């Protein structure tokens, strides 16, 4: 006796819970692996799953088992050369293992356990405990976008908004209310009249006058009932619409970068990694994000991603040109009421000395007024120059401004975390 069951359509993710348990248990190790990987991860790779490696000894499930040594006999198959009494040198490193059922696991205790986690899991780990700063405070201030929604009915409005069903319902109710008493009366009178007409009593003349009287009353009633209008202006109901503000789910991220001769490819790579992190972080809060790349030397230019990261320019550095361009682009395309504006500026700190106060002024007076967040990273191992010192004033004054120094690729992720560390107070 046998029967077949087709289970192929049953859920295949039976192990999902156990997998999550595993990830939770080794969260700290996995997080460390993720943090390590961010500096090695291919810069263009933002889609693929992340492979995570953690030391196998950390995740072993111990059991009591026999160790090396002692006196053992082992029967092996495939004798091709041995005779009784042959002696063999003991192989280094323990040889055949313990002979227990764990043969496949023995002898490789220091192997690493590696596996892949999905992009979502990766980002969750990457941005664990991080949040967008100032989001709550500013959320309601800059709203200019509204959505219209139905909000019940009203008695005045334009004809296109008449709700027919609702209006007729009201009319009917009114008609019933205004005529019910009369109709009841009418029925009674009609019944009385009928009775009189049918009766074969003697007093004919008295009857006749009574009948005439009744007929008169009935007619009057009927007229009064007919006078109740089928529909009245009073009955008309209009659909009501109202507006409510919606928080914008759109964000634009400005990447500003110095591409003057002093910025080499390594520095740009660091900047790029930082931008990628920022971008991925923003995708967690916003549905669609546009990225604007502005590069500058003495002049600023809006470019595409490829050119932004890979084309080489030479010449001096005027940072304010980029800020001005950003300002223009915002005015033109991204009204701050509808867009959440983020900007990240990367530079090696070089600037035309006279220009630095200018930069400060632009940021202070306009850009920082409407930006959600403006992050400045200085990628340099040298001492800071005027730009840094000017920006330091802003750092004190504005909450939505932050600046950090990155020296080596390994700093990127820690610095990023510092930027967005969950603020417990305020």
């Amino acid at each position, binding site marked *: 006796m046998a029967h*077949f069951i087709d289970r192929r359509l049953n859920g295949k993710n039976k192990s999902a819970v156990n997998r999550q348990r595993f990830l939770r248990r080794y969260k700290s190790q996995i997080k460390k692996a993720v943090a390590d990987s961010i500096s090695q991860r291919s810069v263009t790779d933002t889609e693929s799953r992340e492979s995570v490696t953690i030391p196998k000894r950390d995740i072993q499930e111990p059991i009591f088992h026999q160790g090396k040594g002692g006196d053992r006999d082992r029967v092996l198959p495939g004798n091709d050369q041995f005779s009784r009494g042959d002696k063999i040198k003991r192989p280094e490193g323990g040889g055949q293992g313990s002979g227990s059922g764990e043969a496949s696991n023995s002898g490789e205790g220091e192997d690493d356990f590696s596996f892949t986690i999905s992009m979502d899991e990766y980002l969750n780990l990457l941005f664990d405990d991080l949040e967008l700063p100032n989001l709550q405070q500013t959320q309601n201030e800059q709203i200019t976008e509204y959505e219209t929604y139905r909000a019940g009915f009203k008695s005045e409005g334009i004809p296109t908004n008449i709700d027919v069903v609702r209006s007729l319902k009201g009319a009917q109710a009114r008609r019933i209310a205004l005529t019910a008493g009369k109709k009841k009366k009418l029925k009674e009178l009609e019944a009385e009249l009928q009775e009189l007409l049918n009766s074969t009593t003697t007093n004919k003349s008295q009857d006749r006058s009574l009948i005439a009287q009744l007929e008169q009353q009935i007619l009057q009633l009927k007229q009064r009932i007919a006078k109740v209008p089928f529909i009245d202006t009073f009955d008309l109901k209009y659909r009501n619409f109202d507006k409510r503000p919606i928080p914008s789910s759109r964000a634009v991220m400005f990447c500003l970068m110095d591409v003057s001769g002093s910025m080499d490819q390594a520095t740009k790579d660091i900047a790029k990694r930082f931008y990628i992190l920022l971008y991925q972080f923003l995708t967690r809060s916003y549905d669609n994000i546009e990225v604007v790349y502005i590069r500058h030397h003495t002049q600023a230019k809006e470019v595409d991603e490829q050119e932004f990261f890979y084309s080489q320019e030479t010449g001096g550095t005027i940072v304010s040109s980029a800020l001005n361009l950003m300002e223009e682009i915002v005015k033109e395309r991204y009204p701050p009421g509808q867009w959440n504006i983020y900007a990240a500026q990367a530079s090696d700190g070089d600037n035309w000395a006279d220009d630095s106060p200018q930069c400060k002024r632009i940021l202070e007076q306009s850009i920082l007024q409407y930006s959600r967040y403006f992050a400045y990273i200085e990628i340099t191992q040298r001492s800071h120059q005027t730009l840094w010192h000017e920006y330091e004033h802003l750092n004190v004054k504005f909450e939505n401004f932050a600046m950090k120094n990155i020296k080596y690729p390994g700093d990127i992720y820690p610095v990023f975390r510092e930027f967005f560390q969950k603020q417990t107070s305020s």
Partner: protein
Amino acid sequence: MTDRLHNVENNQPTKRLTDTPLSDGPDWTFSLLEDYQTEIARVAKHYALNTYPNQIEIITSEQMLDAYSSVGMPINYHHWSFGKKFIESSQNYKRGYMGLAYEIVINSDPCISYLMEENTMTMQALVMAHACYGHNSFFKNNYLFKTWTDASSIIDYLMFARNYIQHCEQKYGVEEVEEILDSCHALMNLGVDRYKRPQKISMFEEQKRQKEREEYLQSQVNDLWRTVPSMNVEEQKKKQNVPAEPQENLLYFFEKHAPLLTSWQRELVRIVRKVSQYFYPQKQTQVMNEGWASFWHYTILNHLFDEGLVTERFILEFLQSHTNVVAQPSYNSPYYSGINPYALGFAMFTDIRRMCENPDDEDKEWFPDLVGKNWLDTLHYAMENFKDESFIAQYLSPKMIRKFKLFNLQDHEKNNMLEVTDIHNEQGYKAIRQSLAAQYNLSQIEPNIQVTKVDVNGDRSLSLTYTPHANIPLAKNIDEMLRHVYRLWGFDVKLYIDKGNAGKDLLAQCPEPEVDSP
């Protein structure tokens, strides 16, 4: 099964040249599966294979990976280690390090076996013959399984366990539950009764009894640890050795006597113990179980071929898979990973049949009892009454030793060199057979650790004693292991090694003693 009589003459497949063999696929359909199943069942019956009803489930490879990670069971409680196993096997599978098993079969009633969607028709037929009739009849008739497992209740029990553990997780927190399970898993191998038949388990009974057991157990424990001295000194002296006999089932001992466990924790210990007990017979019958199943898929499908029911294409594909399954790489091959239980088991069952049917002089000398016997009866008898160790000791013939070119390698610690003590020749047969049988003796390959003393009247410390076999020490992870024991016991734990006449040495203790400051 004394009423089984096999008619030897009837055992030869009737040569029947069918003009219309079953389709050989390669794609399978449900109706084709049914057809093959019917034919296989008929042949299995012809060979007196007595089985549980079969429940055959078609699954995808992803589902197979799921099944892998919960030790093959269709349902299991949640634990991170299953997640780890899942990640490991799916990773290996995706990288191509590992092919998936063609089937998984569960010792349950009805007997559940999984067929993978990807398999060809031939493979499905092979798996059905192998799992649904081979393993299934083994589960139902082997004495170890009959004594130690209850096929009808395992699924129900796992259901109970899963629900209970889920309930505990909600009530006491996932982490709390995980800690206890971790420690229990660590001691799983020391959580089986080897000599005492366990009670039957079923979900309904289990749920009914669980509550009362909870209260009862707790009261028992308290009784053992009663602190008011109520007995006189004489009695106290008598009682001093607790437990009276060394206890080998650590988990059972903790379930009953660990002083600090709460009732739900005791229930978790019990669940792990029960699961461990359920798998205990499988560990001891790998060679026999796989050998038996392989023997029957081979015999049944060849029988079908002889009858003309399957095509040549079918049988060739089958033979190729079969040959791969029962291949035995040599000791020096890169593919060598111990003796292949399929190979050894299949060869031995085939050999027993040969000795019954076509014995030669050597067989007459070595196995006079088998010569000329009804091979089917003999095979069934062997399957029913042995485990790997005794099966090899009883039936491994010189022919098999020569076939596998077995040799015994002696590795004694005090010698610098390994020594080949016996090879496949007249002087070596018996020694090799003995040595190979011992290799499957669980009591020699799993460490023997027992509870020897509980200091009832003192600091409540627990003493474990390791009795080494052949001077083999314990692996280095004993400190970690003792922490698990300590978690369950709640008071100091000491592990001693029994050195025979030289007395006992303390190996480790937990918590580790603080360095004395004078």
